[in-house]
């Protein structure tokens, strides 16, 4: 496969890992997070410093990047997850900006705003594909478990969830931790793919793009998140033909989908054996109906 296409797939997987966490946290648990880039930054810098300064093996650096994201989410989540809706979103936005500024000012360690060049580009296609598939599978398992149902209960009605003995705060913390891990992991892959990181890569536009992917694909669907990450990462490439109008076209596509399907591409539809069988039987019923109509017409 040519480098261009494998590059797009790798970028898709990087976005997908970050979107997966957001989908669980924002889509399923209902805590609107506007700071995913902050977790990516943590993962990117921690893993980079490990590989460059301590010659850590790549898998270890990746894991450390994810773990760093998770560890940051705990003290951040403790005071902020009690906040209601919009306030939590603003707190996460503030966190990501603070992260960026901290990195910019820790010049001795992080190279400040000039960033860190020459990171070994360890990220390769087979590895990231396997890792991404694995985590999609894990999160899919999680959301269909009783714990996943508890998360959705928190999103649907926090008061009612408490009334049926769901520890709403705990489930928000778990989702936030998983989101932090996946954000950090995504950042670690990104750093070791591009070979260069600087704070401006992890600003508000990056967080926004990721949350747009979650909403675009369907808030209540992991399949939708996967699909959205694929479409919206590849779209700017497809739109290269539009040249200078590329980003305008990108925005227009997103706006259009939101108007036509406010629940996102897939809404809450999930790819599974059951849902495929369901779809298949519906299709057959439609087909039979059509055949009968043709037959009736032919008899006339």
């Amino acid at each position: 496969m040519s480098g261009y296409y494998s590059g797009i797939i790798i970028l898709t997987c990087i976005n997908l890992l970050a979107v997966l966490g957001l989908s669980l946290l924002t889509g399923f648990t209902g805590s609107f997070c506007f700071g995913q880039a902050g977790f990516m930054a943590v993962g990117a810098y921690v893993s980079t410093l490990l590989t460059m300064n301590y010659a850590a093996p790549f898998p270890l650096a990746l894991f450390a990047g994810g773990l760093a994201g998770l560890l940051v989410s705990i003290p951040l989540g403790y005071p902020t997850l009690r906040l209601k809706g919009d306030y939590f979103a603003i707190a996460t936005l503030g966190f990501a900006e603070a992260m960026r500024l901290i990195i910019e000012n820790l010049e001795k360690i992080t190279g400040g705003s000039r960033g860190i060049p020459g990171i070994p580009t360890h990220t390769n296609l087979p590895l990231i594909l396997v890792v991404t598939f694995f985590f999609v599978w894990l999160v899919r398992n999680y959301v269909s478990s009783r714990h996943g149902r508890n998360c959705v209960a928190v999103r649907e009605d926090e008061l009612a969830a408490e009334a049926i003995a769901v520890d709403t705060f705990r489930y928000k913390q778990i989702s936030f931790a998983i989101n932090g891990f996946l954000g950090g992991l995504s950042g670690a892959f990104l750093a070791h793919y591009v070979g260069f990181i600087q704070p401006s890569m992890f600003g508000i536009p990056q967080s926004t793009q990721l949350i747009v992917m979650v909403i675009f694909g369907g808030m209540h669907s992991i399949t939708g998140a996967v699909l959205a990450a694929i479409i919206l990462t590849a779209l700017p490439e497809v739109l290269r033909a539009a040249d200078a109008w590329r980003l305008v076209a990108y925005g227009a596509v997103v706006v259009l989908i939101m108007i036509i399907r406010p629940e996102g591409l897939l809404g809450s539809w999930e790819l599974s054996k059951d849902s495929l069988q369901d779809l298949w039987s519906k299709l057959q019923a439609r087909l039979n109906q059509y055949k009968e109509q043709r037959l009736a017409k032919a008899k006339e």
Partner: protein
Amino acid sequence: MAILEFNGLSKFFGGVKAVDGFSYYVPEGNLNAIIGPNGAGKTTIFNLITGVYAPTDGDITFHGESLIGKKAHEIASIGIARTFQNIRLFPEFSVLDNVRTAAHQRADYSVLEGLFPTRRRKKQEQELTDYAYKLLELVDLADRAKELSKNLPYGHQRRLEIARALALEPKLLLLDEPAAGMNPDETADLMEFIQQIKEKFNLTILLIEHHMEVVMGLCDDIVVIDFGKTISRGTPDEVQSDPLVIEAYLGVGEDEA
């Protein structure tokens, strides 16, 4: 022995005394009611029991253990289930999932096991589903199990909410105006249903009702509150003939007062 006991319970919102020195007890196995006009503080009492609000003063005990300071989900998990006056289901959940989510007693696999499709998890999920179907059959909703709960008609949503509360396998069930929005026939059916589940699940029930007639034939004991204060308590007959209760409900003409 009292399963639930209130001791001088008060809740003030600024200057508003929503509940003012409420003392009452509910013996185990009883079906009791709190009645009173609109805004009397009935739902506030439920919210105090279930940990939604913290009281300004006083104490509530369940099986002799104080509930003050406990979180709402902790109170639910020790056996107090409730329904809400303005039905609170999980609208985007199927009817089945609404009930399954509450049936914590039937599955205890950990978060880690939630990430992997282990055999234990599969078995417990199956048990959850079977159990949920049993409860849905009881409330006549088994054939609508796969529908989204927001698409159910109002009366069915009420029954589903009761099924969800029962899935917690509670000792004490709190029903907040279960008959709201129902006609007299439906109300009579519902009251019979409440009587049935009380026997079947060995429950103690405390219910809030706005209309006095509804609870008259059914309850062991009634407490009447108005503007946060207890104005009467006793058997349905005693309460019904209490002049203070009649006054609270009908008001008193100017010349009489």
